[in-house]
């Protein structure tokens, strides 16, 4: 069993994980796959899985069962790749994809990117909604709102081209130069480095606003291009 688990190969792709099974009896293979997933729940949770079963012939009920047990583990099976036409047909019958673009080497490398350069920012072109937590070891730029119940925890600055109403911690590892900017600001919580802003102090600031540490205190001011240059 341990040998089988070790023989399962997992690759990261742009649209999910590609898992290749070693071949052998289906019962043992699926058990090994599940054991692998259960042993690394954090890694697999919410993953999109493409399964390469080689020449294995899978019956409809076997595939359905696998999809169900995977979905119980919060893993969605979206593709089954096989050399067997029977298995391919079965997969198509269940609405699963049977082709995936193989990962190109350069894409795989980007998965373990090195330390993040100072001028690198994470760009998020969407509204960050309640229940979402974004952690990033640099600056984050949000093109959209940060809604109540959402959290940004960034080591650099947080720039929100939208309304900031959630919780933000900029300079989370102690960078007092970090700033928080938003077009409209009414946060649930706002902290820069180790200084928390008394959110009651900002009474729904209209217009572009910048929050930063100046003279040892956290200050709320109008966000103007002239002053922003120093940040």
């Amino acid at each position, binding site marked *: 069993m341990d040998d089988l688990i070790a023989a399962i190969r997992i690759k990261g792709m742009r649209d999910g994980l590609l898992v290749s099974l070693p071949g052998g009896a289906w019962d043992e293979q699926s058990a090994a796959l599940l054991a692998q997933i259960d042993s690394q729940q954090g890694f697999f949770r919410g993953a999109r899985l493409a399964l390469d079963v080689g020449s294995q012939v899978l019956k409809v009920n076997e595939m*359905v069962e696998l999809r*169900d047990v995977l*979905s*119980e583990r919060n893993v969605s099976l979206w593709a089954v790749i096989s050399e067997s036409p029977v298995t391919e047909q079965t997969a198509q019958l*269940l*609405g699963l994809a049977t082709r995936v673009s193989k990962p190109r080497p350069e894409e795989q490398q980007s998965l373990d990117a090195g330390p993040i350069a100072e001028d690198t920012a994470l760009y998020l072109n969407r509204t960050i*909604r*309640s*229940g979402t937590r974004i952690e990033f070891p640099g600056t984050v730029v949000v093109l959209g709102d940060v809604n*109540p119940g959402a959290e940004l925890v960034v080591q650099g600055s947080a720039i929100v081209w939208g309304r900031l109403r959630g919780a933000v911690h900029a300079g989370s590892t102690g960078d007092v130069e970090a700033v928080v900017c938003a077009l409209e600001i009414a946060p649930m919580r706002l902290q820069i480095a180790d200084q928390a802003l008394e959110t009651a102090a900002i009474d729904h600031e209209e217009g572009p606003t910048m929050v930063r540490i100046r003279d040892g205190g956290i200050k709320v001011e109008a966000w103007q291009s002239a002053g922003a240059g120093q940040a």
Partner: protein
Amino acid sequence: MTAQVITLSSGKGGVGKTTAVANIAVALAADGAKVVCIDGDIGLRNLDVVLGLENRIVYDIVDVIEGRCKLRQAMIRDKHLAGLHLIPAAQTRDKTAVSPSDMVRICNELRPEHDYILIDSPAGIERGFRNAIAAADRVFVVTNPEVSAVRDADRVIGILEAEEKRGPALIINRLNAALVRQNDMLSAEDVLDLLGIPLIGIVPEDQTVIVSSNHGTPVAQDPRSRAGQAFRNIAKRVRGEEVPFMGADKQGGLWDRLQKMRGRR
């Protein structure tokens, strides 16, 4: 004919998902569409009560999934509308009795012979919710003009975006115009502002909704009810008609705002 699958969801409980499913289904069926409602709240079923069909249940969705009956046997026909059927939830089981792929399979079996399949999602964002959205072509997020309901709706929309479910639409239920005027309730505009998704209906607070739910006759069948009218309007929008939002004239600016919201995204 291939049915559109619409799931109604909310995150928070008690905002009126079940009532909305029943009323939209009734309004669609009254217009001649063939509609099936599926109660996705396994273990806490109540869509049958709201539709007045609880006495007719013989089989439920778990019986279908576990092979004790044919799908057709679990479909209960409405008392008044020939085109409306209900697939009830099981009362004695829980959410784990159904998997997302079961829902997809059942909906695919129903699609060829119907126009609309409406799924009533349970509250929460766990298994039952995942089941309910698995087969959905569209999701309507139901919310009340209250901070807690809007917060949960926001969370649900976030999950739908992550699941890549195409453009969810919003139903604001139980809006009390008098309270909004006194600034004691969030306005439709406030809610839209925060959630940033297109609106498909605003339903005014209306006591007749509770009375008719208890009687098992959804208000959409009552031509005098304001809430009933709002649900009938939603049904029309589902069918692709352009219907102005009720009270849009009185609350100046809302209409413009709605148009803007549509353009966004």
